[in-house]
């Protein structure tokens, strides 16, 4: 079938109707699709915000419980200067005072540079980095009880936490064969909050 120019005039209205309806359909579909997408996104965001709010409420409840359970213990840690920067000078002064008390015949210590505490078993420390300053001690003792007295004094008189890992006591010493010598190893533990300004 061949079309003449006059035929196109006859078809004009129907052709325009198809074009118009296609355009209107496209606008309707696009608009409704956009609206659907917008509401879906809004609904997803609202769901996400609700989940956040639930988590915050749960966290608030947890904080409420934790606040009651841990405030005093945390204050103790702060007071003991376990939290914060290491107090090496305090440790040295404390050791000096213990020396003056003559709890042991003699002792020497060396404190190594601070490093990150590398415990193989996992320790969940939250926002805190656990620092470890190794300190080795060498003793000359009259009897083994002096060693116990020394560490009791170290824990009670010096602020901080000395993690004792081991000792070796041997019979004999430089001055008198009846004396004991001992070598102990361990380190000072400090917790540093990562979020605190350095």
């Amino acid at each position, binding site marked *: *079938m061949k079309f003449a120019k006059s*035929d196109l005039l*006859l*078809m004009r*209205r*129907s052709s325009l109707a*198809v074009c*118009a*309806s*296609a355009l*209107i*359909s496209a606008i*309707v579909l696009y*608009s*409704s699709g956009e609206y*659907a997408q917008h*509401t*879906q996104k*809004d*609904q997803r965001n*609202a769901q996400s*915000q*609700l989940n*956040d*709010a639930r988590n*915050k409420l749960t*966290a*608030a*409840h*947890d*904080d*409420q419980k*934790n*606040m009651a359970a*841990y*405030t005093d213990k*945390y204050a103790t*840690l702060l007071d003991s200067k*376990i939290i914060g920067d290491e107090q090496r000078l305090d440790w040295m002064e404390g050791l000096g005072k213990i020396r003056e008390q003559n709890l042991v015949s003699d002792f020497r210590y060396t404190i190594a540079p601070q490093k990150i*505490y590398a*415990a193989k*078993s996992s320790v*969940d*420390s*939250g*926002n*805190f980095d656990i620092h470890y300053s190794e300190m080795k001690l060498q003793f000359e003792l009259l009897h*083994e009880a002096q060693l*116990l007295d020394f*560490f009791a004094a170290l*824990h009670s008189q010096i602020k901080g936490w000395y993690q*004792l*890992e*081991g*000792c*070796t*006591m*041997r*019979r004999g010493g430089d001055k008198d064969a009846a004396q004991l010598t001992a070598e102990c190893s361990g380190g000072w*533990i400090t917790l540093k909050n990562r979020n605190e300004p350095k």
Partner: protein
Amino acid sequence: MKRCLLLFLSANRIHAQLMDGGKIAAQHEFSDLSDGRDGFNAFLQTTKCPAYLLTDLIEEDFRHEAVPHLIGKSRTALFQRKFDQFYRGTPFHQATLLQRQKTGRRDDDILFSALTNPSLITPWVDILRAQQIPLAGIYSVPQISAPLIKSHPSNHLLLISWEKSSGLRQTYFRDQRLQISRLTPIYDDLTFQGSVVKELARTFQYLKSLSLLPSGQTLDVLLLGHAQDLIELQLELPRSADMRYHYVEISDLAKQLKIDYRFNDSDASQIFLHQLAAKPPLSSYAKPEHTHYYTLWRLRRALNWTSAALLIGSLLWGGADVWQSSGNAREAASLKKQTQQLTNAAQQITALFPHTHAPASDMKAAVSAMHTINSHSVLPGEILRPFSAILNQYPQIMLDELSWQTNATTPVATGNAADTPTQISIKGHLADFAAGYRAALNYLEGFERELTAQGYQVTMLKKPLDVSASGSVADQREARDDVLGFALKISPPKSLQTGAPK
């Protein structure tokens, strides 16, 4: 029934009726004189709907041919050759497949037919084209008659009808397939009944002469007419063994075909016109140039339907989207409300918190971490005091070296001595046993048993004297005390493995 224009063309006039909803909305008669054509032209100016042209003319010819069964271009070319051969002078021709033969080459039985006097048709078709009327097709009464006798069981049937404007139509069907048709004008001096009686005998002889009706075969004659005319016909028609008459009241047939028209006489034109509008045959005498505006009309209609379908579809789709989205919007509003309530509740709780050095989670983490670290720490007193208490029971055991090591990197309780965090190693010797080896070994074994009884796990690293069969032993008289030296590895009981937090 859709709105359409039905045209009934006889030799000297055309009847036009506008159908709307199955009823005649308007109807006019136009003669084939110039006045009539002008009137038809004027009538069409107000009527722009699809038109069906039904012809009832004497000048319609039928020819049967058995042609090879072809398809595609070959079939078209064959038919064109036949049309050129039979009906060179008219464009109004068509070929209808009656059947395919079941034997031999299995040729096609084709009925070639044509309206052989185009001058009767062309002027009207030209007017239709000039008025851009969508002409659906050009049909003939015999062509429309065929569906009416489909259900009749007779194999040799003659349908007799009367059309007021054209005359008596006799159409012969064999095996329900159109074979020939004759139109006889009825003049004023002859009644319908008289014409039937006269022409029926002639047609019977004609069929016999063409050998269309086998010898001895009874011809079923189906007479279509008004009840009164049929009663008269029953009286006038001669009784014959060659013919069997079937009388069909035209109003009954109209009712059967759901034609809403009141018949006052035997004129069957309305039956054929309504039948044409209801079920137009697939083929017609019209050529593409005649139905050009009908094709355009169909195209326009398809475009309009497409437009409507697009609009309705998109509106439905969009509506469904919006409806579904409104659910999402309502849910979002509800979720926001819940969020606000939970946020308020959380704020109320946090507002009551005392001023602290750190967030509660940080406090918990710090305290928990220190608790874990402290649990790996063992104070010397906790290790030494229980061990010393046992050692005091064995004064002949002299310690030379004692060491313990806490391995904070190892889990506390695995049940294996080697894996315990704290390990004690002692080196010493047995004093005052002289050469009493057996007593010395028993003494040391007693010490081991005591440790084990207290929950310690003891591993002998070095024995004072190796008396096993695989060892070698020498005289020990000259030996000093430290010959009875030994070494033990001891794991304290679990109760001493963990230190208390500070």
